[in-house]
């Protein structure tokens, strides 16, 4: 059976690049990659129509890289990265394709918050939620309120996530918000949608990352293989993430040593961890005992939209290859959980150093 290996991975710091367009960001990321000529290029990107007024993006980027073979863009909102990983994994696993350059890129740092909300609101149902003028943040706020009521916790409980994420992110040179914060800063930050505050949300910014996936016919320096990919979708739910639960069920016995999860909001981190088996209503009290988001997560590393899942894969690879420049995880098995902003579309990817 064909194995899917990660040959190499690269990324640029998540940041605001006012002087660079989306294609420039890809060029910078790919130039750092120890690459071979791939059979195909798969691009993860969610919002290019609105953010850079561009379609035909996979073709344009492939052409810029001097590649003329099969190329395609995968769009699944903020879960585009996970969807692209699954697509690339299936392609190599099938045996029809031997190597794929997986690129994640997003340009979200150019805009004021109001316009950024307009872009991300495209994640909502067009028939009602989008037309009603809603944004995504009240959904997370409602999840928080229900969580607080159900488990008897107060706002204090949620401050644990940004404190830990910023501690980890401060060690990661690729992190957008590369600084530590104290509890008072979190507690007194701007209210976005009561009780959700600024530090309960993740900063949207620009980013580009590239991961070269190959079959086991190639011999990379360090052998890191993708053990499997699983995915699921669900409706929005206030106290659970059924899509994550379903996608993770395949990996329940996998016993990953560390993980990178999609913490678009602190409440998402809690709900994802609880779908993975941590005690409901107490997961954020247990951060000292698990290796989660040593990148700093979306909270501190930053949230480059549809590129996020590919960032997570690159980070997990670097952890296993021993090249991650931030806080190092112990162990041989990693897990990536890529979701959209509200966790209704989930991809779980298992990696192992062999």
């Amino acid at each position: 059976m064909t194995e899917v290996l990660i040959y190499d991975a690269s990324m640029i710091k998540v940041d605001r690049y006012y002087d660079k367009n989306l294609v420039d960001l890809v060029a910078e990321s790919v130039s750092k990659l120890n690459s071979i000529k791939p059979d195909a290029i798969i691009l993860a990107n969610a919002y290019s129509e609105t953010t850079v007024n561009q379609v035909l993006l996979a073709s344009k980027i492939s052409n810029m890289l001097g590649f003329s073979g099969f190329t395609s863009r995968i769009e699944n909102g903020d879960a585009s990265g996970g969807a692209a990983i699954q697509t690339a994994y299936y392609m190599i696993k099938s045996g029809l394709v031997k190597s794929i350059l997986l690129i994640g890129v997003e340009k979200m740092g150019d805009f004021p918050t109001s316009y950024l909300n307009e872009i991300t609101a495209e994640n909502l149902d067009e028939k009602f939620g989008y037309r009603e003028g809603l944004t995504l943040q009240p959904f997370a706020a409602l999840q928080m309120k229900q969580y607080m009521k159900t488990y008897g916790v107060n706002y204090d409980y949620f401050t644990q996530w940004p404190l830990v994420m910023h501690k980890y992110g401060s060690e990661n040179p690729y992190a957008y918000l590369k600084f530590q914060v104290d509890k008072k800063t979190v507690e007194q930050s701007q209210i976005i949608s009561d009780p959700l505050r600024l530090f309960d949300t993740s900063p949207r910014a620009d980013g580009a990352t590239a991961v070269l996936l190959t079959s086991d016919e190639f011999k990379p320096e360090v052998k890191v293989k993708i053990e499997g990919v699983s995915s699921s979708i669900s409706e929005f739910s206030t106290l659970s993430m059924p899509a994550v639960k379903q996608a993770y069920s395949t990996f329940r016995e996998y016993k990953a040593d560390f993980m990178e999860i999609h913490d678009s909001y602190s409440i998402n981190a809690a709900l994802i961890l609880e779908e993975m088996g941590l005690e409901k209503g107490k997961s954020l009290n247990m951060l000292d005992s698990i290796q989660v988001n040593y990148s700093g997560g979306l909270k501190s590393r930053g949230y480059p939209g549809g590129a996020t899942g590919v960032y997570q894969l690159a980070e997990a690879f670097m952890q296993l290859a021993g090249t991650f420049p931030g806080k190092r995880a112990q162990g041989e098995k990693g897990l990536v959980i890529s979701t959209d902003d509200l966790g209704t579309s989930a991809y779980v990817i298992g990696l192992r150093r062999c």
Partner: protein
Amino acid sequence: MKVFPAQIWRNKESLYSLIAGKCNKCENLFFPYREVCNKCGSTSISKVKLSGRGTLISYTMSYQNRPGFEKTTPEYIGLIRLDEGIEIVAPLTDVTGEIKDNSRVEAVIRRLKADSSNGLIEYGIKFRLVEDENR
């Protein structure tokens, strides 16, 4: 032009009258209306007009907005369980006093946004608190 008549007209049953779908095969009730049941995949779906009445499970005051919605910001957003059992997230309107848990709410039509001071207007449903439901 930011308000496009075809888009508004096409969504009139969701935005003006809360039309849901009911699967004739598995009885799944869902909003907005679609022509396929997302539980069993049946395409035998009936249109059901929801009562527009429900109970407010939770709410939040949202300080974020999108272009065109500045005048209604900040705005209360509610998690509402409609009497037919469907949960939706929708804006609240006409809130003047304290909001109590499990308040009863009803749907009303309100202006959502407009192209300009004399341009096309987009309307939609918001929910207001009902003080005395039997009155």
